[in-house]
Structure formats: structure tokens, C-alpha cells
């Protein structure tokens, strides 16, 4: 009767931001990003991409509670970069990788359906 709507797991409620940014108060170049209504799918792929950046000293994500539909991504960078820059860079690189993957996959499907 009082069950929450199922869509609450993936629809960002009105008035809340998809991504919010919290600068660390004690460590410079450290920040955490709260991403609403996302889970391991985005969290893990983002974390692994951040690890590729040599300016990122630390990158990690957590799902604080299975019934809170949000993840926290924490980034600590060198003075050469900033958490926000690293975050944007990671998303841009993943975006390009997926665009590449999509065109490669479509070509392969076309090639395969022609040959067989």
C-alpha cells in the first residue's frame, strides 16, 4: 500500500540536481560528486577511466546504501589538474570511446551479415 513507486529508482525527482559537486574543505584539489539515480554501471566505468589520468591521485566511488539511489564519486588530483577537469575529461573520453565502439560494432554487424 505504501510501497514507493518503482520509477523512483531511476527518475530524478523534481528540484534535485542530477550531479552535485562538493569541494573538500581540508584537502586542495579534492572533491566529491554526488550523482543522483545512478549505480555501479556509471560509477565503476567512470572510476576506471579516472584511473587512466596520471593527474588523478585518487578516484573512487561508492553506493552508500542500496535504497538511496545515488552514488558518490570522490576525486583527488595533483595541482596540475582539478577534480572537475578530471571528471569532465573522463566523461569526454568515455563518450568518444562509446562513439568509436558503436561505429566499429555497426561495421562489424554489416560485414558479418554480408559474408554469411
Amino acid at each position, binding site marked *: 500500500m505504501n510501497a514507493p513507486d*518503482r*520509477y523512483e*529508482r*531511476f*527518475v530524478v525527482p523534481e528540484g534535485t*540536481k*542530477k*550531479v*552535485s*559537486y562538493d*569541494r573538500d574543505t581540508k584537502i*586542495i*584539489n579534492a572533491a566529491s*560528486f554526488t*550523482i543522483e539515480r*545512478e549505480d*555501479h*554501471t*556509471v560509477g*565503476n*566505468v*567512470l*572510476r*576506471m*577511466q579516472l584511473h*587512466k*589520468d596520471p593527474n588523478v591521485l585518487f578516484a573512487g566511488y561508492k553506493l552508500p546504501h542500496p535504497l538511496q539511489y545515488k552514488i558518490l564519486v570522490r576525486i583527488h588530483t595533483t*595541482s*596540475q*589538474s*582539478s577534480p*572537475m*577537469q578530471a*571528471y*569532465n*575529461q573522463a*566523461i*569526454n*573520453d*568515455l*563518450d*568518444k*570511446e*562509446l*562513439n*568509436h*565502439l*558503436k561505429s*566499429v*560494432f*555497426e561495421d*562489424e*554487424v554489416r560485414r*558479418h*551479415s554480408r559474408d*554469411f
Partner: protein
Amino acid sequence: MEGISYQRFPKVKIREMKDDYLKFELRETDASMANALRRVMLAEVPTLAIDLVEIEVNSTVLNDEFIAHRLGLIPLTSDRAMSMRFSRDCDACDGDGQCEFCSVEFTLNVRCTSDHTLDVTSTDLRSSDPTICCPVDVAARATAALDPNSAYDPSEQRGIIIVKLRRGQELRLRAIARKGIGKDHAKWSPAATVTFMYEPEIHINEDLMETLTLEEKRSWVESSPTKVFEIDPNTQQVVVVDPEAYTYDDEVIKKAEAMGKPGLVDINAKEDSFIFTVESTGAIKASQLVINAIEILRQKLDAVRLSLDTEECDEQFGELGAHLRGSAV
């Protein structure tokens, strides 16, 4: 700083492709990407499924809810689902989910008048637009009818049974199919199974292997629960016949140690190559499922980009930030 990119360029090779089955290799990327794709295919690629049922007459042995649930689980052809709207954010129908942009209507009207048990199946569902959306088995029959060389045998296919009727029982209803995702309810999941494995690299230490007698070789080959190795009948050498049959069970490694020959075989998982198998429910083609998953993951990442006002908000700290970073010259 701009212009530096840590982008990867993955490679794909398809091994086997059928409408509802796909096996392919994904190389030069990492497990997080492979797993993200797997998760998106299972839970976030949209399809259509019956979501609202208005029952007019139900004198069958199953209650209304039970029938509504069974109708929901019937896979429907969903090639158009990617371009359709979710009924909760459809402007054309105030979220009622009853317009052409976000829904397809079905009717079902069956009455048993004979002494034989009558099966009510997915073939009894009448779609308001069969070209857009109909039960997958009905669609398969329609395509097979157009192709004379097809191996499809309609006499073997009797549709998906919804309920069985006795004489005098009747089922009459109206159902609305809507777009949804597997995260909401598993009935919307387009994937039956999606798996990936690391590609194994198997190296046999030939010198050490030659110190084994044929009998020892045979017992070592037999120790693997799956058929990975074989003895060549001509040369009596142990050869790898199917590296992918290896289940990372370590049995052959333990066996080699037990035989006093550690290092007989070296098995590594290649951490950047994956073998995917994708099985579809039939709602969308397996190859299209992968393409849609890539697109959805890309859209998800686009959605988590920082909004401009968050960046501007940080700019206010710019001076302080620059000062803290010690880069204010």
C-alpha cells in the same frame, strides 16, 4: 591540459550472429566497460510490454491479477521502442499512456464453446498496429510466411499460453503496452542472458610435458572437467583444443602440482579481451540490443556531465582555488 586524451579504441569481432543470439569478442577495453554494457543490456535497454489491463469479462479459473501478470510477461516486438516516449513524460496524453507516441493497444476476446479445452495464447491478442508491436511468436510466424526457405514450422508453434478455458468460460479484455526498462520490472528486459568471460591464454611447458609418460599425460588431460586439452593421436603431444572451454577451475594446475610437475601449464586471463554471449527474448534483435546498449550508456554518461551552473559556482571559488593551488603567479 586540454587536448590530452586517455581514450581507448576498442575492437569488435562477431563470431556468430542469429536474430536472438550473438557471440562476439570485445578487445582493447577493460572489465568496467564490459560490465557496464552487460548491465545496461539487462536492465536499461527499453522494450514494450503490457502494463495496463482492463478486464471486461473473466470467467476463467485464473483471477484478473494473475492474467494481467501473465500478459505482462509476453515479449512484444520492440524495434520502435528506442524512439518512443515513456508514458510518464509523454506530453501528448498527460501521462495516461494512451497515445500513439507512448503506447500500443491490444484486445483479446475468446470464448470456449466446445467440449475440448481451449488454449488462450498470445496469438489471440489483437494489436492496434501489428507492424509496430505484436507478440514475438506472432511476428516470427509472419516473417516465416514471407520466406519460403525458412526452417520455421508453424505447426510446432502454438503461441504462448495465457490461460485454458472449459466450455462456457470466456475472457475479454483490453490491454495497453508501454515502453519501459528492466530496472522498473523484469518484463521489460530485452535480454534472456548476457555473459562475458575473459579470454584465456594457455601455454603448455613443452619441455616439462615431454617428461610425462603417455599414461600420465592422459590422466592429466582427463583431470580437466571441460575438454580443453587433447592428446594428438599421431605425435602423442598434449595440445590445446579449446581454450575457451576452460572455466578457470584450476583443476589442471592442481593436478600438475599433485604429479610433482608445477609449472606444467601456465594459464592467464587476458584482462583486456572479453567474449560476450547475448541472448535476446526476441523483443529486439541481439545485434540491435548491443547497439542500443552502447547508445544508452552514452546517453547516461552525457546526463552525468556537470551542469553549467555547478561549474560557475566553482568559478566563484576560482581565485581562492588558484591561491590554494599556489598557481597564482
